[in-house]
């Protein structure tokens, strides 16, 4: 059996995924077929953002991963140089 914190974290990951799926499906697939004055429209941004926000998110993710990899590589190189000097 996984530890309690593992189970909570895993469960919240699943819930987050389901929430994102439901929200985005409503926004992208269902909303265009509803009347423009339907009350559901008040919970969502205009449809342009259904494209730009995820694209921005993906770009931000790539930047974050790139920065992380770069810092790890720079640290690794510094370590190796320090080792070479002590030898």
């Amino acid at each position, binding site marked *: *059996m*996984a*530890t309690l914190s*593992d*189970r909570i*974290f*895993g*469960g*919240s*990951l*699943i819930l*987050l*995924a*389901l929430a*994102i*799926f439901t929200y*985005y*499906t409503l926004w*992208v*697939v269902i909303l*265009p*077929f509803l009347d423009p004055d339907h009350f559901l429209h008040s919970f969502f941004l205009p*449809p342009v953002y*259904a*494209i730009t926000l*995820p*694209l921005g998110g*993906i770009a931000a993710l790539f930047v974050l991963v790139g920065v992380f990899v770069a810092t790890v590589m720079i640290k690794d190189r510094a370590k190796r140089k320090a080792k070479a000097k002590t030898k």
Partner: protein
Amino acid sequence: MVVCTKLVQWLAIAAFFMELWYGLVVGWFPINISPQLYQVLLPMPLYAIMLLGCYSLIAVGYQLMTFSDCPEAADEIKQEIQMAKRDLASKGFKF
């Protein structure tokens, strides 16, 4: 012999659907697409990426939830390590 790894297979499938999507968006096919349907069609690649992300999150979360620790096995292997150490020490090995 054509190289047909899983990567190539997935790329081929993705390329096919991207082509289909692009054709529908640009209007290669003689089909009437209502404005609403067009609005749904437009973000479909992003929708596919979102689906992949959600699937990955659920897979990771589920495996994390059902991940099994084995405390008995940990105790057992600790005991065995101690036994092996004692055995080696009795034969004159220095740690």
